[in-house]
């Protein structure tokens, strides 16, 4: 493949900044909720429009570059819209629009306190996420990664109950040390090679340092990004963080934060080390096994959760590791599968979280065992839930099937049949922990319930949209955003071969 | 008695005195609990350093550093004026420091009725 054609543009910078610029406006409109929400929505739409407007460039293989200024001698604070970054930015920005609408319905429905702080932190998170997606080098990536860590903290402890505070502490005590590992690894890279611009196929080569050094470096990197990616045993902050309000869980813990972690894994494996070097130092198996064990164990743990959001959290831990597995296997198909799952898991999981939130707002119920017959009360919500959960279990016709299919093929291509087995097992377990929810919702009844009815349209519309997206992408993955083309192009860039 | 030691005792004994004074001063500053004694220790310490400079500048048989036709141009005939000048300044500094210290001591005594360090530290620690 030809090296990508690059050109200067400030558009990626604006995509990062727009939600940052919205923060002062949001804070200033503290006393006027409608105006405040207008700013959030406006920022979300502009951000999405900016990201969407870059799609033609990416499809043509042109990369927009924006060097802001030097941030450390010899290292620029720079943004670069490559295909893989674009995929992540597209997912985050499009779902932010829906989450913003949903958030408004949610926080008003539950009368949350300190809504201004909530929306301001949210906007901050989105800026950081887009920054992570477009970061052109390791140091820029680290900076946005840490900002994301910090901006998420007020959201995790938003409720300020003892449980939420404890969750916040747990979150920080996992992510801050991880951030330091990442900083150390980055400093080490800078010391070793000087230039830390991301290069498809990796900027480290076996010549720059001894194999032992490179192994330590890789370990530090994986510790650094693996916490957010929920690789076991670094995952336990994630279920705890479910103490946050549901839209936070939805966007951040299904889309932005954890995906930033997974995205970090993809960057490190594909753009720092690269397939050749990782095969040479032999660490890809470690990563693959960690992922394989994580999704199996997480699926088992998910079955034991009665709290709906916690079950979804463990499900998230599992699905993140699918993506990590695909990255570790290093075949064209497995990388395509990983990138597809990055997108598709987002639409499905956000649907499920939206549904959980809608149920909570209407009924204040969090436990699955209390949800008998809820499907008849809230038919749209639970239908969307069914779509999402069937998709995650891998039923054909929904987008989850497509990404899992690629992952399965990838593991065969890599001669790792054992991972195919694990994938299938985990698919069955997914079905085992999702179907009971759908079953009790539609086929059990509970006479004690008053007639709840659906939540406000602000919540039902977004969750229906994401469910429909999952269905449509399951049939026509190339519709609209050309998701399938994007994933293949990004995978081809990393693998260095023809698609 | 070795050559070096006898040299130290007989020719360089002012340096030895300096060291003794330094140690006395240090002992006073660090070990004494009475704040006035600490201050005295500090003054002894500073005095020792002044002595050190002056001893270094002293030359047997030399005169005041004012050029005269009788003594000629040989540098050996004159004292080194610079350390003396420096030490005048150092004495001024020392006096100023002592002044500030005494002012502080007065305030401390007025507020706490004590200049015993142990007692004062106890008072410092308890919360009012």
């Amino acid at each position, binding site marked *: 493949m030809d090296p990508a054609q690059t050109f200067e543009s400030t558009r990626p910078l604006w995509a990062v900044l727009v939600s940052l610029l919205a923060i002062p406006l949001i804070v200033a409109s503290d006393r006027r909720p409608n105006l405040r929400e207008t700013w959030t929505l406006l920022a979300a739409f502009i951000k999405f429009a900016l990201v969407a407007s870059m799609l033609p460039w990416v499809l043509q293989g042109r990369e927009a570059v924006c060097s802001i200024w030097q941030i450390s001698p*010899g290292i620029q604070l720079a943004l670069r819209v490559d295909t893989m970054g674009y995929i992540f930015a597209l997912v985050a920005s499009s779902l932010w629009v829906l989450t913003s609408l949903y958030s408004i319905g949610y926080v008003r429905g539950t009368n949350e306190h300190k809504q201004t702080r909530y929306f301001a932190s949210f906007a901050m998170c989105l800026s950081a996420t887009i920054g992570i997606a477009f970061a052109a080098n390791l140091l820029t990536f680290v900076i946005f990664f840490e900002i994301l860590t910090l901006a998420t903290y007020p959201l995790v402890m938003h409720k300020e109950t003892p449980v939420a505070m404890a969750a916040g502490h747990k979150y920080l005590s996992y992510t801050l040390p991880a951030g330091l590992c990442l900083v150390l690894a980055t400093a080490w890279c800078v010391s070793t090679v000087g230039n830390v611009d991301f290069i498809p196929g990796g900027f480290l080569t076996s010549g720059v340092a001894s194999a032992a050094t490179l192994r330590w470096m890789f370990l530090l990197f994986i510790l650094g990004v693996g916490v957010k990616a929920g690789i076991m045993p670094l995952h336990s902050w994630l279920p705890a963080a479910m103490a946050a309000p549901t839209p936070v869980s939805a966007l951040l813990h299904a889309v932005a934060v954890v995906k930033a972690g997974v995205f970090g894994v993809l960057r490190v494996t594909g753009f720092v080390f690269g397939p050749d070097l990782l095969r040479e130092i032999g660490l890809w198996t470690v990563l693959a096994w960690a992922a394989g064990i994580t999704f199996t164990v997480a699926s088992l743990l998910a079955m034991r959760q009665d709290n709906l959001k916690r079950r979804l959290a463990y499900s998230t831990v599992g699905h993140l590791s699918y993506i990590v597995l695909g990255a570790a296997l290093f075949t064209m198909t497995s990388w395509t599968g990983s990138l597809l799952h990055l997108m598709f898991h987002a639409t499905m999981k956000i649907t499920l979280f939206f549904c959980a939130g809608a149920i909570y707002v209407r009924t204040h119920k969090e436990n699955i065992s209390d949800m008998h017959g809820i499907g008849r009360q809230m038919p749209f919500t639970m239908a969307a839930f069914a779509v999402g959960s069937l998709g995650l279990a891998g039923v054909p016709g929904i987008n989850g099937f497509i990404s899992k299919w690629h992952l399965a093929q990838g593991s065969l291509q890599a001669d790792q049949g054992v991972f195919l087995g694990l994938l299938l097992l985990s698919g069955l377990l997914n079905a085992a922990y999702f179907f009971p929810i759908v079953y009790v919702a539609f086929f059990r009844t509970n006479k004690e319930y008053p007639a709840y009815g659906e939540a406000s349209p602000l919540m039902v519309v977004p969750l229906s949209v994401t469910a429909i997206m999952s269905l449509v992408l399951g049939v026509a993955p190339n519709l609209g955003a050309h998701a399938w083309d994007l994933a293949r192009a990004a995978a081809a860039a990393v693998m260095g071969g023809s698609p | 008695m070795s050559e070096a030691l006898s040299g130290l005792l007989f020719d360089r004994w002012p340096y030895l005195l300096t060291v003794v004074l330094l140690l006395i001063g240090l002992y006073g500053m660090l070990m004494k609990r009475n704040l006035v004694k600490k201050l005295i220790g500090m003054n002894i310490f500073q005095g020792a*350093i002044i002595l050190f400079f002056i001893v270094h500048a002293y030359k047997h048989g030399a005169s005041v550093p004012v050029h005269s036709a009788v003594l000629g141009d040989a540098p050996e005939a004159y004292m080194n004026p610079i350390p003396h000048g420096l030490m005048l300044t150092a004495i001024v500094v020392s006096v100023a420091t002592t002044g500030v210290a005494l002012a502080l001591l007065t305030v401390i005594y007025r507020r706490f009725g004590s200049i015993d360090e142990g007692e004062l530290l106890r008072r410092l620690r308890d919360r009012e």
Partner: protein
Amino acid sequence: MTVPAGSETLAHHGEHMASAFDATAQSQLPMLVLIPLLVGLALVPALGLLRRRLAYPTTLISLLAFLYYSLRTLFAVMAHGELEYSLAAWKPPIGIELSVDMLSAFMVSVIAVIAVLVAIYASVAVRREDPEKEVPYFATMLVMLLGLTGMVLTGDLFNLYVFFEVSALGGYALMAIGHKKAPVAAFRYLIMGTLGASLYLMGVGYLYVVTGSLNMDDVAAIIMHQSSNPAVQVSLILMVIGLGLKMALFPMHLWLPDAYTYASSTSTAIIAPIMTKVSAYVLIRMLFFVYDTETFLRGTPVGAVIMWLAMGGVIVGSIMAIAQKDAKRMLAYSSVAQVAYIGVGIGLGTPLALVGAMLHILNHAIMKSCLFLVTGSVALQTGATQIKDYAGLGRKMPWTFLGFTLAALGMVGIPPTNGFFSKWYLVLGGIREGEWVLVVLILASSLLTAVYFFRVIERIYAKVPEQATNDASLPKTAEAPLRMALPVLILGAGVLVLGLFNAWLVSAVIARALPAGMHVPGL
């Protein structure tokens, strides 16, 4: 050991050095930096006696002039290189010279910026703390600033001692203004500070015995090849101990927490950011510009000892800070830890580590003055001094605590704040030297910092006050007046701006402040 008589060496060097000194640019600027402070120092007590209210405007005007000339000096040095001014036209090495290289110009600018901001803050705060102290406060502040500036500008070892004591005298007096217990802490600081300065003077004495000169460049040239001379080695040890005491290098930090805690916040806000830093500056000046770095820092264990003691200071200071309940005391221990980062960089002594140390001098000055000013605002507005009483204040004093939060994040070292980048350079320097234990400790220590700052931040923004009565007694907003809130906000913004533009600062100023022969890789 031969003891050359001073006058002979002096006469000998007088001739051949004179030509070398003519080469550097002569300029009035170094003196012009000092003059506003001298004039202010004369005018403030005089006008203050006349009318108390005149003290502040006089101080502000002289400080603004000071800032103006400091920055002009900085830009002049950036454009033309080192500037020199011979006092009373006596040529060095006989006369005293003010010699301003990039490092001095940088330090003077740091001092000037902090001084102006704190003075603006103090105009309201001191009046409200104790109106009678207004004139003494500004006068002693100017004494201290004069001393510190002189230390930075002078090129003469003994002159430095004098300025050392001038700054210290101002500092003792400033510290004694404040809490009832402040004089006790100030007295203890006086004893320790004088001991430190005296040890430095003793070191100067040994150098004078060996070289017969007091001019730094001259002394440096003479002792270059005398690494085996025990007198030179003794002088180095005396200076390191003396300066270590002044900069509160672990384990010589014990005077600091009490002194910072009981002094008034306005005093601490000017003393904490620059006093210990200027001592660190002198240490850099001695180790890298007077003594030959290669033979003395690396050839002897001095560098390693400084580095590991400092690292111990980082850990101990941070742990002690975690244990504190009083906000100012917590910040005081945090100062011990943060100054120790500078010590780590000095001890490591590589170009990158030294860049980290110099950058941290500025960064910590900005962050710590911001934090101490906030404790002052809080104490004045709400009476709270304990961390637990800070609960819920984030909503009552939004602007003040915005500054606080930014500074706290900088202390923890969250990118892209300036605190991150000083540690970044230290870590890069450590990796390059293969000091892995050090690197890991530097990073781990920022977790300790995170523990005590996030605890405060959480209280400020999240926890509702435990005593509802306390809450009711306060008005809905208790924001500090503009002249107190603005310096805090400017400093808070500085934390971000300096972080984002650190590469510019490093390449334009700090990398050029390094001693000759040191180069930052990548520039």
